């Protein structure tokens, strides 16, 4: 399986848009790259961009490896992608408004009822609750990959609490400090307006009853959360308070935060806390991270939660396979971005196909994320595959399978020099009540191991700056 190389057509000739990068790499000695990489690492440490890895208590704080070679998209490629992302975000919001409303898509037989209603992320509490502008997924981090020079495939829609945008922004910041000359000679689309766009999105979705200048806050599980750095980074850039559950209180169905000047009303919560932990009175009673009574305030229409409660049903890996249907049903259009063909193990024919072809497929848990609970068939040994097969047989509905895609590669500076490594891309799609905003680019994740396809930072992936270039 030969992967699509985003930079080179063959050994000598590079694709349009990459000419400057070729000249730059040819004229920059590896020693300089090594030095710049060390500088970048120092910058990240100083800023304090760290993350925690599950099950690795010793490494409380690590930094994600950063590759100094940018990943490039031409303006044309980006336009095509952005149009597709927008289409997808609109469709997902329509889908959520529908299933928590009249459920027309189920009545039309386009998606099985039990897949929606018995989905662990479906929240019956949301049924019949109307949201401002019918927006559920205010922030989506839609993971896409390329396999050739035309098509993008969506891997996951990440409609709950997608993270990574702070890396996108800091990567750019670091690149501008390390290579100011490259920015001077190329027209690279800026992304630093992201916090402003996010704030505009959140404000547009404020409750109707909110004052003219609604109060926004970021809700975090706290400093022990692996993405805490990002939460505090965003609160800082948005210029709003970073609150924990214990800072909030609900009185007469109104959410207030405890401040040194007394209680202050909050209108919009950009929450980075999973549904389960939001309100111990409604969801997990043992949650000490949430706010008792929050759901009452929500249902009374006194606060906007972004993202809304119950969006997980739209990024579930089994529902994912129906997204092309969802796009056609609500928009009457053909999907612009491709879905990866998916076998749903809940269907007996698919199950036997998957079990017979485990060595060719990627199998994922329906509700998994972060690269956990994944079997990459071609890379796994027979023992691992057999063990995984037992898990699938025990609970087929919990798994889906996809062909292993030949993810595109991007030139990456590794120990052996500059070599192609597989990449994906997570652009962030902001859906407000007024419009959809997407800053050009996103977070490029790169699998640093040779041949590795796993880009998750928790599994040894790194990141790159992503440049949308005006030719």
């Amino acid at each position, binding site marked *: 399986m030969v992967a699509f190389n985003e930079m080179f057509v063959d050994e000598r000739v590079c694709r349009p848009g990459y000419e400057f990068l070729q000249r730059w790499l040819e004229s920059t000695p590896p020693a300089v790259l090594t030095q710049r990489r060390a500088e970048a690492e120092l910058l990240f440490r*100083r800023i*304090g961009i760290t993350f925690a890895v599950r099950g690795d208590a010793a490494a409380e704080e690590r930094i994600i490896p950063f590759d100094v070679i940018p990943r490039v998209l031409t303006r044309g490629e980006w336009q095509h992608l952005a149009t597709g992302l927008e289409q997808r975000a609109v469709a997902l919001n329509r889908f959520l408004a529908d299933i928590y409303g009249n459920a027309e898509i189920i009545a039309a037989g386009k998606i099985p009822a039990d897949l929606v209603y018995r989905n662990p992320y479906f929240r019956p509490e949301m049924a019949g609750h109307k949201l401002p502008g019918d927006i559920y997924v205010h922030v989506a981090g839609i993971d896409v990959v390329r396999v050739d020079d035309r098509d993008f495939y969506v891997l996951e829609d990440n409609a709950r609490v997608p993270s990574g945008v702070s890396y996108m922004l800091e990567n750019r910041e670091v690149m501008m400090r390390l290579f100011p000359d490259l920015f001077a000679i190329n027209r690279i689309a800026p992304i630093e307006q992201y916090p402003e766009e996010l704030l505009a999105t959140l404000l547009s979705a404020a409750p109707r009853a909110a004052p003219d200048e609604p109060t926004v806050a970021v809700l975090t599980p*706290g*400093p022990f959360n692996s993405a805490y*750095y990002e939460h*505090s*980074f965003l*609160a*800082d850039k948005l210029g709003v*308070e*970073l*609150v*924990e559950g*214990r*800072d909030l209180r609900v009185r007469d169905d109104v959410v207030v*935060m*405890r*401040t*040194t*000047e007394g209680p202050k009303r909050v209108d919009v919560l950009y929450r980075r806390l999973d549904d389960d932990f939001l309100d111990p009175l409604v969801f997990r009673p043992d949650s000490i991270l949430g706010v008792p009574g929050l759901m009452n305030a929500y249902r009374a229409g006194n606060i906007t939660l972004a993202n809304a409660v119950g969006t997980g049903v739209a990024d579930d890996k089994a529902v994912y396979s129906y997204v092309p249907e969802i796009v056609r049903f609500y928009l009457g259009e053909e999907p612009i971005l491709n879905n990866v063909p998916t076998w749903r193990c809940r269907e007996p024919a698919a199950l036997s196909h998957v079990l017979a072809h485990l060595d060719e497929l990627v199998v994922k848990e329906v509700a998994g994320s972060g690269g956990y609970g994944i079997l990459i068939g071609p890379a796994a040994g027979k023992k691992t595959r057999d063990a995984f097969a037992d898990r699938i047989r025990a609970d087929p509905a919990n798994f889906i399978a996809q062909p292993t895609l030949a993810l595109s590669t991007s030139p990456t500076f590794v120990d052996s020099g500059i070599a192609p490594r597989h990449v994906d891309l997570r652009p962030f799609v902001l859906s407000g009540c007024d419009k959809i905003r997407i800053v050009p680019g996103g977070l490029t994740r790169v699998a640093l191991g040779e041949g590795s396809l796993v880009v998750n930072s928790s599994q040894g992936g790194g990141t790159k700056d992503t440049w949308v270039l005006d030719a």
Partner: protein
Amino acid sequence: MLSRTADSLFWLARYVERADNTARIIDAARRLAATPMSFAGESNEWESALAAAGALVLFNQGHATAERDAVIDFLAFSRDNPSSITRCLETARHNGRAERTALTGDMWEAINSGWLDLKRFDRQHMDRDTLTEFLSKVKEACLRFDGSAYRTMLRNDAYCFLRLGVYLERADSTARILDVKYHLLLPEGAPIGGGLDYFQWSSILRSVSSLTAYHWVYHESLKPWLIADLLVLNNEMPRSLASCYENLTMFLDQLSQAYGRQGPAQRVARSIYTRLSNSVIDDIFQKRGLHEFLTEFIADNNRLSAAITEQYLT
């Protein structure tokens, strides 16, 4: 600002101040323990160091006698002592990390690099020189944090809460050091100003870094009541109770102006400050007794801490 943020800043400052105080207490005890027994008398300097750091009760739960190495380990490194220097700086850093955006970059770097520096020390191998280096690194880290707050922070409510933490902790520490040392050094029935040795009295001043200041202010040999005067009532002495309360009332007034509201914290602070301003050291010695005076002060100081917590931090 969020009450939790204010609370974190307040305690961040208290823990940094506490780490610095403890380092100075260890330093002074070490110095006194190094003087010949004929000069130093019978007192156990290490027990007094524990008491001055407010750690005697906790220490006694796990130790029979106050031996040098055990005390230093307990005060500087112990995990069982929540006020050990390493735990203080760890908590301070944790608070700083949680409120990263409320700190300036310089402040965060001061606390973070200080913590990283000190983590490199191995408590199992603390010879004389290593301990000296450790203690001076602690003082450096605390000075650097304090200095970067002073130089880089916006003078807003966050700054006020940080400074309130500093002065409350400092007042508590000065009062304790004075109380504990004074009584441990003063043998039962000995007349005040009697034959006690210079080294012992100077150790009080050393633990609050005020020996030179004493000479500048009083131009006299060390007299216990003058030492008390310097550390309790002298406004010019930045470690004195009076100076701490001058600052506490000032920062609380700034808060009440910013928020347009006064509360119990302002009233408690002002009444303590007024009492200090109206005292003379002779009266404290003759009418009340220094120990009684200091005991009451420590309780008052805790009352102010509780009032600030109640009014702003919860």
